[in-house]
Every structure is written in C-alpha cells, then in structure tokens.
C-alpha cells in the first residue's frame, strides 16, 4: 500500500517535472531512472572493470547473467526471482546491498521493482544503438505535411496541442534562403524576381540556383571549418604559419560546391593518403590532421606529443562521431560508456601520424610535395646538401660566438644574428677558421642558386610522412604520458560492439600503417550508428539555428537529448539512401513546410515551449561575424567575389598589432580589392584574429566548435559604428546611392532597397530624410557626410543583421 502510494507519487512527480511533450508513457525509463541508481549504489563493486560475485551492471548481458552463486540478479518480469531486489531490501545488514554506505531509499527500491515488473527493458542511450528508419507518424492535419519532415514535427506539436506558425511571406523566404545557403544577402532585383515568379517550381528553382552558386560552398565550408578547428598558424610563442593551410580550406569549399558524398569527405580527411585511389584532393584533405595547435619548443616533449594525439582523438571523435572521447583520456568516462581503453584504442589508429614538425623543420612531416618525382628527388638532394653545409656554417659561427661577450651571445639568438655576424664574426675567428668559413659560405650560395633555378613547387599541408611501423600504443595511467600502462591495439569504442579490427603490419616499403584507412572506413560506413546522425544534425543546425541535438559534438549521455529523435534517424537514413549527398538534403529540408514557417509569435506556444524545442515557428537568427562583414561589403558594392586561393590580410589597426610581441609579425596587407573578399578567405592567425569577426562571436580556433555563441554586447555596436572598415563601407554605400538617385528621398529609398531588398516604409523615408536634414542644418555637415551618416544607420539596422 505504502509502496504503491509512493509509486503513484513518483509518477506524478515525474510527469510534473517533465515538459509535457517528453512524457507520454509512465513506464520506468532505464536510462534516466534506473541506470543512475545502479551507477550511484552498485558500480563501485559491480561496474565497469569490477564484477564482485560475477555481477556487473554496465551491460545487459552481464546484469542478466547467472551469477557465481547460481542465482540471477535480475529476472525480467519476476521480482521474486531477482536477487537484486532481495538484497537491497534485506533487513540483515550482513546480507543487505550495498554493504557500505546508505541503503537504497524505498522510492529507489520501488522504481527498481516496477522496472523489473515491466520487463526490465534495458534500452541503451538513444544514440548508442543502430539507426533504423522510422515510419513518419500519422497527423491530424495532413494538409500541412509537404514531406515526412513535417509529419515528424507536426505530430509532436499536435501532441502538445500547439499549432505551427503560418507560412512566411515570399520576401522573408527569399532572404532566408539566400542567407542559409550562401551567407550573402539577396539583391532587391533578385527578391523581386522571386516574388513575381508565380510558377509552381519557383521555390525549388531558387533553392537549386543557390545550391549551384559557388558562394554556397564558401558559406557551408565555414561551418565545417569551425568543427575541425581550422586555423593557419600554430599558436604558442611564435604562432608560426602553416604554409598551404588554405588549400585545405579550398578543398572543403570545393567539396560542398561539387556535392562530394559525405562518406567520401570523411574518408579523404581521415585517410586520404591511404585510399585505393589517392588524388591531389585526398592528400590535401589530410591537412585535417595538421590544423591543430603545435608547440615548436615544448617544455616536455613527451607531454606535447600526447597533447597532439589528444587533439586528433578529441577532434575526430567530436567532429565525425559526436562523442567527447577526450573525456576518457585520464580515466573511464563517468557517465558515458566510454572506458579509457576506447580513448587509447583511437590513439592507436593514429599511431602512424608523425608530429606536425620539429623546430626548424616544419616541411618533412606536414608539407606534401606534388610534381615530377625526378624533380622532387633533385630538390630533396639539394635540400639535404644545403642543410648539411648550413650546419657546418653554424658550427663555425658558434665557435666565434662563444668567444664574444654575453650580450653579443644573446644577440646571436635574435633577429640581429646576421648583423652581428657580419660585424664581428671574423674578428673572433683565427685565420684558418676564417678561411674555412668563407669557403663554406661560397658553397652554400652555390647550392642555393642551384635550388632556386628549379621550377617552383606545389605543396600542400598534409600528412606528408608517416611511421609505417609505429611504436606500440600504451594506455597512459591517469592520462600521464610518463606513466605508460597496458598495451592497447587499435579498437573501436566498445559501445558499438564491433570486433577489434585485424590490421596486418604494413608491408615493407609501405609509407603508412594502414590503420587510419580502417578507422575511416568504419566511420564512413552505413552501419556506423553515429556518423549519419551527426552530419544530418549539423545540416539541420545551420538551417534552423540549432540542431535536433543541440550539443552537436556530443551525442553522449551528457549531451542534450534530441528534440525529434525519430526525425533525426529518418533523415540519417534518407541521407545514406541518397549517396550521402548534402545538396538533396538541403532541398528536402527547405521544401518542408517546417522550414517555410514564419517566425510569428504565439503566446500559448511561447508559454509552453519558450525555446521552441518543438519547432512551432522558425527562429530569428542573427548573422554570424562573417555574414555581417560580407553583407556589409555586398551592400556597399565593394565585395570582391573571387572564389578560392591564398588567404587575404585585411588592414588591422595599429593598436591591435601592438598586442603582438613583434607588431605586424605574420600579418601582411593585401591589395584593397583582395581585402574586400569574403571573410572565409581571411588569414586565420591564432593570436591575431580579425576584430569584427571576434566581436560577433568567431569561436576560439584552438579546438572544435559545435555551435557558436550568439552574444549581444556593446563592442559590436562600437565596431559597427566606429571602425574604419564600416565607416569606409558606409561611404561606399552613400556613393552607390548617389550614383543611382539624385533626390535625398530617393537616395534614402535606394539605400533601403539595397540593404534590405524591399521598398522602404514611410517611416524609414521620413526618418532618413530628417536625419540628413538634421546633419546638414543642426550639425552644419556637408550633404555627403549627412548621407554617409544615414548609410551608417542602415548598416546598423537590426533588420540588416537578423534573418527572419
């Protein structure tokens, strides 16, 4: 009786504390209700790695198995035959479990009992199970459903008694589509054309047109670059450049533009040097491994090497699998079923990857040289020769330097070395040393001339050198690389239940170990439980402003649960059925009624679901930093639309450069036309990020970013009102409207058409005209300046910075 009452109370509370749409059934949920009890009270002796009395609760098989004593801890459906219940309820302290600590509460015991009565369903965490294609649910309002996406969304809305928002108007849709697919605003004419197009295919035609635009790849590549911690320098003291990193960036843009199947995209990045068909593209893709931070002068080289591997494990597991495996570096994951061996199993897959470089040589391991092998050999020979002679030269220089004063010795380690040597070296060498030295200098010059005479090289940031027979991988006790533990072979995370791969040692002469290929094939497989889910979620995220799983890098138990799990799985299967191509997926999503809803508010829905988890409307979205900058350039008429190529360097303020220990180091200045290219082409220097982008939430580039913050803070206002960049663009916009209209009123109208792609409202017209007049009359400004101030207003309008 008492038990029952408590039970009922527990149910009431459960429902009371859940959002209405998440609690349909009153059956006990294993993941959220039972597993935490077992973890809290039992895992210490019957958990990962420990099985007192033969009992372990961390897998269904082990938990249901017959124990050493012959009984079963859990017998589904039969509380009486479940030793677990007997022991936790026992009044005898000798017999009761757990032997130490507080006994289970009566509520906990009641839950366990009910769970067993209900059949002891051992459902795993939603993401840790194979993907099955669910049938789209039945809905009441069938009219609303354009494609299955809508059925999944509407079913949940109907269950919560909510109505979806009405359809967005065509202008809103056009602007939304342009920004979502290209990150650039539509022109007035483009929107007008779409509004006037009454053909039934007008929407899909627009979507197709935008997907075919090279700007599509530029925009979507940026999303991927966030995930793979893309940057073009190494961080740390020197923050030196990673030559040719931009080719990886171009590879990603091109992959989107050509709609490279995602499984191929995965394989190329993880094992592009090991595929059946290795191409220049697939080599460039392996630049993926070389994008992270790298310390050229580590205090502890062993630790630094472990950190580099950690970057690969963390990034790869998050980017491709949505798993924060990095958490298991030091110990088994506390909640997710990720033991430490999973982490090192992945480390073992990467064992053939060499370090980014060594101080003084960042070429051998990370710059892949393309071209005629004979020429390459010739060049390599000259390189070797040059290095050898250079070493001879330095050794004689050091003889002289050792005889100099401490101040000069110090100088010899700075940029002044050459000047010092020219000034003083010969004075500190004896005649024969000096003679030898001059001979070396001549030889060196000769070799360098020969080398320069060779045709220029084409190289890429890539995995240029591997260890085909890598050293064994050992688990690091408490994550400490100085305390190696058990031997670990390449293995897939154990939750997947896949047998460890058998990888034969590389054949003689092989250039790599062949392990990454195995990993890449496993990740890019249709059988993988996570890969397709993770990528469709990312695509969804950038259409709707948030993923179906908001924690896009973490599908584990500490991540956010999916708002629409069946939809996620349905989309994942759909993607695989369509050759893993993303463009059809964009088309499908954008064709849905769900995507075409307006952002109109609804008090009832807002009260029940303020975060719009159920998708009762389309969320307003602020532009990213790149979109703000690029849109400003478009509107000012100054965007240079060149696609691909080496990175650009916009002018940075002197104040910003002064934050560097060597002001201006590693930053040049591109031509004005080049400076006006899209933001994705801006050189990403880790210690010197472009301030407008930073103000608008460019993420930290040192580790994978799943979703950007969207902050609203005054630095953004300062940048958009006072920066040289925006002032200049406002001036350009003013010139542009002056060229197309002569009257102030028409100029104001034109500025709104250009920036917002619609006709101005009467309020906008009068506000603009009055502002211009005020500036002229009250502030005695020239007309040009007054108009520029109005254009500055336009560039700061919320409507310009937000997409409905």
């Amino acid at each position, binding site marked *: 009786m008492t038990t029952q009452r408590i039970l009922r109370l*527990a149910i009431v*509370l*459960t429902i009371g504390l859940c959002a209405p749409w998440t609690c349909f059934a009153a059956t006990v949920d294993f993941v*959220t*209700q039972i597993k935490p009890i077992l973890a809290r009270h039992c895992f210490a002796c019957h958990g990962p790695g420990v099985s007192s009395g033969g009992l372990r609760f961390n897998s269904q098989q082990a938990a249901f198995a017959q124990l050493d004593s012959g009984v079963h801890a859990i017998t589904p459906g039969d509380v009486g035959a479940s030793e677990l219940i007997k022991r936790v309820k026992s009044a005898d302290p000798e017999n009761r479990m757990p032997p130490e600590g507080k006994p289970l509460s009566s509520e*906990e015991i009641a839950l366990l009992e009910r769970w067993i009565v209900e059949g002891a369903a051992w459902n795993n965490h939603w993401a840790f199970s194979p993907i099955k294609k669910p049938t789209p649910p039945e809905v009441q309002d069938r009219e609303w459903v354009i494609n299955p996406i809508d059925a999944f969304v509407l079913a949940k809305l109907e269950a919560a008694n909510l109505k979806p928002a009405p359809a967005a108007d065509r202008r809103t849709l056009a602007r939304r589509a342009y920004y979502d697919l290209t990150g650039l605003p539509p022109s007035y004419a483009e929107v007008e054309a779409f509004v006037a197009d009454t053909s039934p295919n007008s929407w899909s035609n627009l979507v197709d047109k935008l997907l075919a635009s090279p700007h599509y790849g530029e925009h979507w590549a940026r999303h991927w670059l966030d995930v793979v911690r893309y940057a073009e320098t190494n*961080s*740390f*003291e020197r*923050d030196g450049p990673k030559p040719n990193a931009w080719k990886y960036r171009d590879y990603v843009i091109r992959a989107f533009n050509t709609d490279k199947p995602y499984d191929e995209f995965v394989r190329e990045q993880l094992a592009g040097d090991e595929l059946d068909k290795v191409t220049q593209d697939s080599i460039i893709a392996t630049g993926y491994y070389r994008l992270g*931070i790298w*310390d050229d*002068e580590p*205090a502890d080289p062993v630790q630094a090497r472990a950190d580099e591997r950690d970057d690969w494990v*963390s990034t790869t597991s998050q980017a491709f699998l949505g798993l924060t495996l990095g958490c298991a570096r030091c110990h088994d994951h506390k909640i997710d079923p990720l033991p430490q061996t999973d982490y090192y199993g992945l480390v073992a897959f990467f064992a053939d990857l060499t370090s980014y470089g060594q101080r003084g040589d960042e070429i051998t391991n990370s710059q892949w040289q393309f071209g005629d092998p004979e020429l390459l050999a010739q060049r390599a020979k000259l390189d070797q020769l040059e290095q050898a002679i250079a070493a001879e030269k330095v050794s004689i220089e050091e003889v002289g330097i050792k005889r100099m004063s*401490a101040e*000069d*010795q*110090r100088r010899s380690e700075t940029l002044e070395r050459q000047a010092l040597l020219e000034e003083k070296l010969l004075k500190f060498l004896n005649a024969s040393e000096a003679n030898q030295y001059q001979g070396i200098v001549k030889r060196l010059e000769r070799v360098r001339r020969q080398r320069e005479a060779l045709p220029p090289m084409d190289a890429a940031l890539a995995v240029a050198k591997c260890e085909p027979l890598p050293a064994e991988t050992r688990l690091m006790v408490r994550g400490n690389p100085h305390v190696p533990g058990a031997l670990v072979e390449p293995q897939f995370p154990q939750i997947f239940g896949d047998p460890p791969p058998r990888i034969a040692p590389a054949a003689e002469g092989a250039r790599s170990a062949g392990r990454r290929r195995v990993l890449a094939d496993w990740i890019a497989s249709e059988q993988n439980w996570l890969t397709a889910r993770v990528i469709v979620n990312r695509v969804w995220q950038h259409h709707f402003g948030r993923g179906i799983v908001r924690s896009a890098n973490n599908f584990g138990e*500490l991540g*956010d649960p999916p708002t629409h799990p069946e939809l996620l799985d349905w989309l994942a299967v759909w993607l695989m059925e369509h050759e893993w191509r993303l463009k059809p997926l964009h088309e499908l999503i954008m064709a849905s009624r769900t995507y075409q809803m307006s*952002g109109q*508010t609804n008090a009832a829905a807002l009260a029940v679901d303020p*975060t719009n988890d159920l998708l009762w409307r389309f969320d307003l979205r*602020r532009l990213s930093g790149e979109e703000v900058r690029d849109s400003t350039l478009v509107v000012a008429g100054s965007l240079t639309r060149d696609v691909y190529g080496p990175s650009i360097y916009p002018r940075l303020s002197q*104040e910003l450069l*002064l*934050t*560097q*220990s060597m*002001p201006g180091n590693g930053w040049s200045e591109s031509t004005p036309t080049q400076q006006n290219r899209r933001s994705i082409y801006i050189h990403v220097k880790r*210690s*010197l990020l472009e*301030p407008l982008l930073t103000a608008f939430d460019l993420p*930290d580039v*040192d*580790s994978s970013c799943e*979703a950007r*913050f969207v*902050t*609203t*803070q*005054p630095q*953004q*206002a*300062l940048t958009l*009102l*006072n920066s040289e960049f925006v002032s200049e663009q406002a001036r350009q916009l003013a010139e542009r409207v002056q060229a197309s209209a002569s009257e102030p009123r028409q100029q104001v109208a034109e500025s709104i058409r250009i920036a917002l792609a619609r006709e101005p409202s009467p*309020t906008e017209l009068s*506000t*603009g005209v009055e*502002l211009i007049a*005020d*500036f002229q009359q*009250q502030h005695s400004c020239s007309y040009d300046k007054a108009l520029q101030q*109005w254009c500055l207003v336009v560039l*700061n*309008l*919320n409507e310009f*910075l937000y997409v409905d």
Partner: protein
Amino acid sequence: MMNPAPKAEAFCHRTRREFLWETGCGFGGAALAAMLGADGLLPTADANAPIGNPLEPRPSQLPGKAKSVIFLFMYGGPSHLDTFDYKPQLVGRDGQTVEVKTHGRGGHRNEGRIVEPRWKFHQHGASGKWVSTLFPHLGKCVDDIAFLHSMTAESPIHGSAMLMMNSGRLQSGFPALGSWLNYGLGSLNENLPGFVVMLDQSGGPISGAKNWSSGYMPATYSGATFRPTGSPINDLNLPRDVSRQERRTLLDSLVKLNQHHAELRPDQADLQARIATYELAFRMQQHAPEAVDLKTETAATLAAYGVGRSPTHEFGTRCLLARRLVERGVRFVQLYSGGAHNDHNWDAHGDLEANHSLHAKETDQPIAALLQDLKQRGMLDETLVIWGGEFGRQPTAEYAVGTGRDHNAYGFTMWMAGGGIKGGLSIGSTDELGSAAVEEPLPVKRLHATVLHQMGLDPNRLSYFYRGLDQKLVGVEAVEPIRQII
C-alpha cells in the same frame, strides 16, 4: 524523492546557459537584465545554473574578501635571487662551478657557473624581510606582502609558461584567470570591461592575445586591452569628424527604426538587447575616457606613482589607472611590465645587471605607490595585488661570460598583497642556491586557487561545462588555496 531526470538536472544547463546568453548583455548587463527580467523575457536562473546574464554581478560562493584583482605581470621572468629570495650562501661564490640541475631555454644541464646576486639585500619592516636594493620602495611595503618563495611552473619556456600562469594550462584555448573571475562573479560596472589588460609600451607579450583569451567561453569574458592614451578600447572613440551630438542624432534615428522592427517581433529579447547595447556603448564612450583621465588626481598622487618622470612615468601611469579601474568596479586588471622580446622585458639572458636595473627602476616606485594608495583609500582589503612573472631565473650563468641567467621553472618567487592576504609573511623556500623549491612547492594552480578563494569562489566548484566535462581553472583534482597566507 526520486529525481526523475538526474541528467537534465545536472547536465543540461549548457543549453539553458546558452539560451540565457542569447538574451544579451552589456559589459555589465545588470541594467539590461533588469529590463528584460521586468518584461518577463529573461528566465530566472535557478540555484544550479551558475550563470544568467553573462556579466551580471552574482553572489559569490564563499564569503570573499576581495572584489578585484590587480595582476602585475613581470613578463620575461624576473630573477628571484636578485630581488626577494635572499641567498647569503651565494655571496662570494661568483664564478664557482657547482653541480645543479637546471632546465631552461638552453635545455637540461647538470652544472653551471654561479652568478652571485648582483644587488645587496637589507632587512625591512617589522617582519624583517630581506629585499634587494633593486626595490627600495617596495622594501617599505613588506609588512603588507605575503611572499611565495616556492612557486613552480610546468614549463621553462615563455610561451607555454605564460599560458600556464594566465590560464592554468600549457596550451592555448583555455580561459584566462580574468575570464574565470568575470564568469564566476560578473562585473560591477557595465560601462567598462570586467577584464582589462594594459600592455607595456614596447609591445605585447609573446603569444599576444592568447594570454587574455576566454578560450572556450564566449568572447565577452576575454580581456580587453586598455590604453592610457588614444582610444582606450578598440573602436571606442568616435571617428575624428563625428561629434557626440552628431552621434546622438544618429542613434536617435537608429533606435526609432530598430524599435519599429522590434515591435513586430515583440517576444524577441535579443532585438531589445541589441538596441540597449547602443546606449551602453554611447555611455561607455563617456565613462571609459573618464577612467583614463588623470586630471582629477592630485599632484601628490601623480608624484607618488612617478607619473611625469622618467623612468617611472609609463608603468606609474598604468598602476594609477589600475587603481582607478578597480575603483570603478573592474574585476581583473592585468599590467605587463615589459613587452616584446629580449631586454624589453625581464628576460635577462645577456646582461642581468642592466636588464633588472632598468625594469626594477621602472616599476619599484609605482608598485609601492599603488599598494600605499590602495591602503590609504581603504581599498587594499578588497583588492588583491599579485606580483610575478611566468618563472624565475637560474642561480648559474647561461653563457661562459656575463651575468645572464636562463629561465627557471623549478622554483621562483611571487607575492600577493591585500584582498585578505596576511602581510609580512614568507611561505616556502628554495634550496640554498635558489635552484628549486624544496619546502612546500607551490604549483601555479595553488596560486589560482588562492585568487579564486579570496574572490569568494570555490576553486573546486567553479566549473564550466565544455566538451563533455565540467572544466575547472585548477583542473580535475581538488586544489587547496594557500591557507597560510589567508
């Protein structure tokens, strides 16, 4: 009662936090929070959610003594042996070769030539603290200072050691101490950044902005570089040809149009937030220059800091600004003594005498003036002052000739004063040569734990959920503040 969804309770605040985030903030955000809260648009953060509006002032976790921190970063690594760690055993042994394990820029060595400390030491104050003649003014403040003689760092290389001192990690990508404080406590002044960095006139330190980055936290928590002259904050000043009245005219039009746009989207808090940030920015344009305007300071104060005189003017000005910023509620102010490379900072590889004489002269009087000024104004109790570099220097010479010393992360001295720290104390010690900490070695995380603790934050509880883990400044394992000096 059973908790039906422990996962949601314990771990889903990230979403909640981000949701709250999107409702916007100023450098302070308090006014905005009130505004949005009044409209019922800002959900109230529950006790478990550590953060509502990002920089809204928050009650501290513990009764903290200090409200602000001034970190005087002696970039390059000052020699403890020539400043505060008195080693009479070294006197008279100049040039002797000793067996001593060192690890510096030049790698590992097992022996070296002793460089006798180049300055004489005298006892000061009631505590009788030995201080070298490099710091005559600071000598007078020793009874307010707790010296930590057994500091250790994990790297003897500038770049990684600086990151360690600033963010607790050898790698970049993690939030700086100032970011953690603003995340944990919010800012007391919405018109100024909560985390201010003032660089040396010779340039930034190695790794530049990485030293005050907010890492995986939102950029609002990163340090803002603040300049004594020109535009204190990036893009703060109006363009040369725009007056404040003109800007007001522009803003009035902008607000009108943005309000009109927002009226059609009445439940979108970000739109209102964004309108408000323009007003905040406009106010900052008035307040930030006021904060750097020294006209209201008396001649005596300026003289005490050495403002207007060589070689103290530059650092003295920044010390005075630090006091003014702290007075105005800035949580964390970091001043760099030294910038750029080589002898522009304390990195005395060549001629230690010239290097340290220069940098000590630039900073000794201003720092002493800062401590005295804070004390006299009754602010020292609430202001935690930290002095030190990323590491110290070796007892032995780096080169065959000369006085230069290589880096030493095995043992060095830092000090703290104010903010509830006991003065006149010295904790820990290095060996007789000063080569390594022997008595109570203090890793950098102990220093960080002490700072958090004094600011009213529990170093082992202040966490930020990122990459599947509750990340902490002091790392996974529990770290004790340095109790002896509290």
